[in-house]
């Protein structure tokens, strides 16, 4: 716990001077009460730097998905505070949270990202439709070109491959220019080639479009595309790594597994 807090505060990084895109302070999430109480997150402090690609790793049950859900305003916390940009989201009502998700956050889920009744383009512009905003045409074209879907826009999700579907999901997340994009195992259902494609797009959107991305994954290769990897175990951030490679992440994970089993 202290490790994580210290890691965040004692290691100023390039870009860290800017206000974080999202931040959590002393966030605890527990289910149940009394003897059956399970602590999914235990007083977590974290800052997500703007314009960076952050990966959250950890074994099953480490709380990595819960952390992401809490950061994204999909789940409530038991205690602690969370900010998206300079808005504190802990304590917001459902309506305000919904608006926040709509206007400031993009999502990419592991599966079932698209509405089967809408075609690719309609899926991409859906968040803006919901908000009643007109999509920025030039930006939309750029995003569509970046993810390489220009000739597939009129296709329904069932007519697209799994990789193409995830690319549509990425395009949707990017199109509305959210302050932050959360990905929940976005490549978990893809073969390695399609996965690499999607991750490349995410990387490029950070590098070329200046997007902030937080991604939960258990795949060291996926994590290697990030600028920074946070390691979670038993609801606590136990370590972090900058400019990771697949090997270094795998090695850290192995060490961490060994530590846990010992």
């Amino acid at each position, binding site marked *: 716990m202290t490790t994580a807090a210290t890691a965040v505060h004692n290691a100023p990084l390039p870009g860290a001077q800017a206000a974080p895109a999202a931040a959590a302070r002393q966030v605890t999430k527990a289910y149940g009460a009394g003897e059956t109480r399970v602590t999914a997150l235990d007083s977590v402090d974290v800052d997500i730097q703007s314009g960076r690609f952050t990966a959250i790793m950890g074994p099953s049950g480490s709380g990595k998905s819960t952390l992401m859900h809490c950061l994204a305003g999909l789940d409530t916390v038991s205690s602690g505070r969370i900010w998206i940009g300079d808005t504190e989201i802990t304590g917001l009502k459902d*309506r305000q949270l*919904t608006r926040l*998700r*709509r206007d400031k956050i993009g*999502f990419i889920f592991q*599966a*079932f990202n698209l*509405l089967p009744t809408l075609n690719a383009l309609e899926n991409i512009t859906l968040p803006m439709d919901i908000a*009643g905003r007109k999509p920025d045409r030039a930006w939309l074209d750029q995003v569509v070109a970046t993810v390489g879907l220009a000739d597939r826009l009129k296709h329904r999700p069932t007519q697209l491959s799994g990789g193409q579907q995830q690319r549509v999901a990425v395009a949707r997340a990017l199109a509305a220019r959210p302050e932050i994009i959360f990905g929940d195992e976005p490549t978990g259902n893809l073969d390695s080639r399609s996965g690499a494609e999607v991750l490349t797009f995410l990387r490029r959107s950070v590098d070329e479009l200046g997007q902030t991305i937080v991604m939960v994954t258990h795949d060291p290769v996926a994590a290697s595309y990030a600028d920074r990897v946070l390691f979670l175990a038993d609801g606590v951030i136990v370590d972090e790594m900058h400019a990771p490679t697949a090997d270094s992440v795998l090695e850290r994970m192995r060490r961490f597994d060994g530590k846990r089993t010992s």
Partner: protein
Amino acid sequence: MLLKTSLRSFFAHKGRMALSLIAVVLSVAFVSGTLVFSNTATATFDRLFASTASDVSVGPHSDRTADRQVGAKVRTVPVGTVQKVSALPGVKSAVGEIFVSSAVLVDPATNKTVGPTTGAPTLTGNWVETPRDSLEITSGHAPQGSGQILLDSDTVKKAGLGLGSQLRLVTATGNYDLEISGIATFKTTNPGAALAFLDTQTAQRTLLGTAAYTSVEVFGDGSRSNDALKAEAATAVGTGFDLKTAAEQKAENAKGVGSFLDFMKYAMLGFAGISLLVGGFLIINTFSMLVAQRTREIGLMRAIGGSRGQVNGSVLVEALILAVLGSTLGLFGGIGLAMLLIRLMSAVGMNLTSAGLEIGASVPIASYTVGIVITVLAAFIPARRAGRISPMSALRDHGTPAEGKANRIRAAVGLVLTAGGAALLVTAAQADKPATGGALLGLGVVLTLIGFVVIGPLLATGLIRVLGAVLPALFGPSGRLAQRNAMRNPRRTGATAAALMIGLALVIGASVFTSSYVSSTNEQIDRSVGADYIVDGGRNGLTPAMVSAAKSVKGLDHLTEQKEIAATLTLPDGTRSDTGLSAVSPAFVDDFRLPVKAGSATAITGGGVSVDEAFATAHHLSVGDRLTFDYGQGRTQSLELGLITAKGNSLFDGNLFTGIDTVAKAVPAAELPQDVVLFGKAESGVDKARTLDALQESLKAYPQLTVKDQAGYKKIIQDQINSLLYLVYGLLGLAIVVAILGVVNTLALSVVERTREIGLLRAIGLSRRQLRRMIRLESVVIAIFGAVLGTGLGLAWGITAQRVLSGKGLSTLSIPTGTIVGVLLASAAIGLLAALLPAFRAGRMNVLAAIATD
């Protein structure tokens, strides 16, 4: 093992089953309720008749022809008959009774008729003690002398009268002022009639105008059988009498009550039929969705070795559980319904509660048969589909079940049926004979209905694309998502909308028919009625006193009388038919512009007779033919056919007209029935409204009469037709309740199926309000889709019916646009209503749970 899976699955989906269960329960409840009610009523009346019928009843010889006439003279038996039969061995007592249904009771305080005006009769008679009285005096005393009357307690209560109240008795012999001297209560069941009693002399004087009885009731001492008693009595009284034993009386009485109960029975079975039909769709839909949702589960069952038959069977067993449960609840619901009906009947004067419910074996047998057959039949198609699921489905990843595409065979079958039905309707509309047209129409209605049900899913995609086109523009993303959702499973949308379609098609068809009927009749009245006023005598006709009262009104140019004479007609070719003859006074031809096909209108008052065109064509009659009329009691007359009336006018179709003076040549004036209706013509130049007031004033003492001008008469016709519409609306109401259940069902299941989709939408920022709106709009689109189909079908039916009957008086087509717009708006409201619960549930769905991957 199979049963265990089915049971588990049934209870796992009990929420979903609940709606189908309601449909089964409703249908079965109507069936069992109908049976319980009619069994109870029959048993009650059997007891009543058994306890009150005399052993042998001696009545006047009835003449089938003459007794059918409205306002016919009452037939009697001579007073001496009592002595003749009471002297017979084995007779304990013989009592002369008087009962007539033609007398009218009026409360002078309110000037309203006392007793029922439709349905059961008001019977007035003489108060005599017999060994089997159905009434006993509970307050006051028996009527004595010319100024007293005794009434049954139900009638007294309903009319707000009491001991000492004044009553006016209106009979063919005159008006009499009486005072209530006593009140009697039914010992068993009041069949709904009003009963009034005078003392014997007063009854003879006022009701019959002669010292006689209407029947002599014979009670035996038990030493011989009723049949033996009847035979002996018959010898004693001679010819000219009809004798009936207790059993024969009972059978005759039961027939009278039966016809009324039958109407109730068929109306209720109509409700049952509609709810069964619509409920069937609900069950099909529920099971289709359950099967679709369990595709993987079923695939797994098949993969580990379950046979196709076992899968099929497990679904059917589930349906059977639903059926048994639904039938049981429906059975008890039906008993409740019957109790409610009995309570309702007692409010209109038929007291059945004293007897207790008569259930019998037929009720559970019918309930379970209906419930099980309909449910299993409806579940059969989905069950077969379940059996065809391949084991591979277990391995495939189904986020949502495969979306059923309307297939080609279905399209072809639907198109053929619909086209065939439409062709039949078109042929029906052009048919020469209404009977042929009617048969074609019936067949066409059935075929188009089935065709529409089959083709519905195909239409769903196209029609909803059009109907829903405005949604995205009006409601933004919620609108677009709703439209797409309504189109994504056309089969489901089609089946859901079909339930609503049936109800609406019925109501639109019926309202086109009735509104055409009303406007046709109005138009015919305008075209052919020259009379200004009509005085309708109702079921008892007009007494001579009434006619002379009306005649004395100032400002009337003349009054035309019309009598309905019963006669048996013999045609030149020898065929006979029982047909009524309308006898009119000479002014009739001035008051009505008879549509002439051949001959001349004045012929009917100049000793000739008229028939309508259809009758003339059917029997190859032409002007100048001679027709023979038999008026009963050996009175016959040969009349020349002087006029054939053109068809297409309901006022005259089916009527044979002749002059009153013509009939009077064959039947003595005293034996002629009373007038049934009077037509009045105002003198030229007088104020017609004032003359109507004067006419109404002159007949004020007779509240049973309807005195109207043309406008008032049209209104009466409209009111009569409206009461028919209420029954149709009742049917619609039920169909709509079941249809709403269907929409709720479909939406609720869709919401469950689309849990992840809803979660995704919520995650990317769709607000609760937008989500609820999306579901509401989907519901409205489905409802309006059903309404549009129903309206189209109903219009086609109604217009064809009008065309078929255009020669039968339904000459003008009138489309009730108000009703149609109302129906469409109501459907939208139904859609909103049905979406309430599913939308609420969807809104409350936890975003995280919804998107959590399994």
